[in-house]
């Protein structure tokens, strides 16, 4: 009996929260596409809020009055983006950085972004030589040829 009451009350709470969650999700849902997918889906995507990722093409950043134009590339495909948001672009927004742009696509194919996230993840993790680091397998003698300035 008491259990039934509790279950009822819980159900009311959960349904309310579920409903709120549904509204919130509808309001803020953003479709994530790769540039290639975006080209395929055609016009139906133009009404949706979109998020597209890619690398910023070197030399493509053009800072204009009230907006910043740039091109992002991914797997050989590129997308022209105009950033119109009010927040200044992040410090990590530089040539070659990975960028995630959020906004809508215009009928002419240009992407108008209200938000831009950028990160240069590779910057901190990459080997200074630009090649993947090689770790000598544990327990095996590490060959240190002459000329190596490695301290022992």
């Amino acid at each position: 009996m008491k259990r039934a009451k509790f279950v009822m009350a819980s159900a009311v709470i959960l349904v309310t929260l579920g409903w709120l969650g549904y509204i919130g999700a509808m309001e803020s849902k953003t479709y994530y596409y790769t540039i290639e997918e975006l080209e395929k889906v055609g016009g139906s995507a133009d009404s949706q809020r979109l998020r597209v990722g890619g690398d910023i093409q070197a030399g493509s950043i053009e800072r204009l009055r009230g907006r910043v134009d740039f091109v992002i590339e991914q797997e050989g495909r590129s997308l022209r983006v105009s950033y119109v948001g009010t927040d200044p672009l992040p410090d990590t927004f530089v040539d070659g950085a990975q960028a995630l742009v959020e906004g809508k696509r215009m009928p002419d194919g240009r992407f108008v972004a209200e938000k831009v996230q950028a990160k240069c993840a590779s910057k901190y993790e990459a080997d200074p030589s630009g090649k993947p680091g090689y770790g000598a397998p544990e327990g095996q003698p590490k060959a240190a040829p002459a000329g190596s300035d490695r301290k022992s």
Partner: protein
Amino acid sequence: MDVFGSFALILAFTCSVYTVAAGIAGIRTRHPLLLKSATQAGIAVCLLITIATACLVYLFLTDDFSLAYVAGHSNRDLETFYKVAALWSGQEGSLLFWSWLLSLYAVTLLIANRGKHPELMPYVTVIVAGVQCFFLILNVFVASPFQVLGTTAADGTVQLMAPADGRGLNPLLQYPEMVIHPPMLYLGYVGFTIPFAFALAALLGRYPGEKWIHLTRRWTMVAWGFQGLGILLGAHWAYAVLGWGGYWGWDPVENASLMPWLTGTAFLHSVMMQEKRGMMKVWNVWLVFITFMLCILGTLLTRSGIVSSVHAFAQSTIGPWFTGFLLVCLAVCVVAYLKNRDYLRSESQLDSMVSRESSFLFNNLILLASCFAVLWGTLFPVISEWVQGTKISVGPPFFNKVNIPIGLFLLFLTGVGPLLAWRKTSTESLARNFGWPLAGGLLAGALAWPLGFNDVYALICLILSVFVTLTIVSEFTRGALVIRARAGLNFFSSVGHLTMRNTRRYGGYVVHFGMVLIFIGLAGAAFNEDVQNEVEPGSRMEIGPYTLEVQSLTSRPAQNYTAERVTVDVRRDGQSLMYLYPERRFYPVNEITGTMVAIHSTLKEDLYVVYAGRDPESNRAVLHAYRNPLVKWIWLGGIVVVLGTVLGLVPNRQPVVVLRRAGVVTGQDAAALTPEPVGAQQRRVHEATD
């Protein structure tokens, strides 16, 4: 040094495998020497990992850039303080640090419980060592921090090399909070391993009663406290360093840290149901299991790149390892539960909707709902990709819509729950306990409304905050008045006595009060405002009651960066209040810039000024000013929560036996004085060993 460290880790791995093997053999054969050797090996693991960690720190301090990890996260100019902190600034080091913290927890556990609980400890030792094994596998075989830089030539020889200088530490991490925040969070994440191990051990060994809960109460509180502190420090770092004017953005990495905290909070409350009434045994066991698995999931989300995050963590290959480990944990938990679930039968039933029990049930329901919503929102891109083939993400509106009402309901329960009686509460006691706190809350709301407190949620939050604070005050006052009457002390030492007699209860109230302060601070966000303008020396900006007048733009070099700084004169009513110096710093080593936010923080509001950079065309400086009311209350609340948690960890002082004068003490007062509410005394016997 790197070879030494590597070997220490390999040995640690061997020892921890031995701990697991000898422990299992010991449980089977009940051979005391096997069990003893397992414990000793567990202690050795800690020593060995400590050595490895010390080696890595030494390599950082001596600028040994032949090591990939050191070269990638430090440079010669870096301050010594940050060289040590660089230990946990990247993946390999973080995992080693994680391993090390786990081994410290384990060794404390083993030493504190040496010779005690012979039925339970072998299981606990094996489970903790099992988790340790997993992390050591990562440390040794998958993401070793001791990898050296080098290339392989065509003939297979390895050419080692060391760059002249390292790549430096990410400047965003060169900030004191960023040094403390990860260790705190890790202490939380790792700490939940201990209650997890006890719960699983009790289930596997069919250990009678609630003893595992008594044994783990302090461990859980410690882990929970660290987790909460870690989250708040992270929020403060985001606020003070990232320069976007906020402290919480529902980013996947933030969510990952919040989820175990939510289930941990649920667990801290629901264990009381089991201790006092023998209910919710299955629920409690699963809450700990889930909390632990959420900790692992958190790391998986942070490290694997499944969900995109603004946190610039590298996407790496360790994701599958964590997924595998998560599945193994889940399998072990499910099997242990299915095999021994008859041992978790409940002893009592829910008696009334208006009772302490039901308030705990709702508290748990709502915390779990919140956790589920956060998890759902975080994983939504992954789920939608499975279901629909399209990645769809949900943003802050989703999280806020669900979590704000949940937060307010929790706040309401915070006030109501502790004053409800176990089993059933009568209507007149409801009126007596809640009458004037509720009136006080409503009065505060009525006063605040005309003063511009016109956001519905913020207004409800204010009413509830006052209500909860008044119930807490009334609890302290009621108890203290009784003590004063009987022991003849003054009011304040009565409060002290009261608190020390039942630190768990009154520490809990202090934590609740801290949460109230945090809620007030969060409600302030409803009234945030901001302006952004291009400025030059002499130009002015208005925000709220403040006028910001730019005095100058200067450039100055520092040890490893060059700073460009704006001097802003903050004026109010024509009077100059102070100068603020928002800065942009350029770090030549990493070729990136960082923002130093200037914050003028008062209890009423924060004035938060960011030098956002120069407009590329006009080359004029862009200044972004925010007025964020009540933010400081969040940090103050955090301090109060930590103090309350520490208070709850202090052992109770035994009350002096005083003869009761008949007729003076009411039932409620007696409840405030007895260390545990009625019905708990027989269970308290176990607590003596706590």
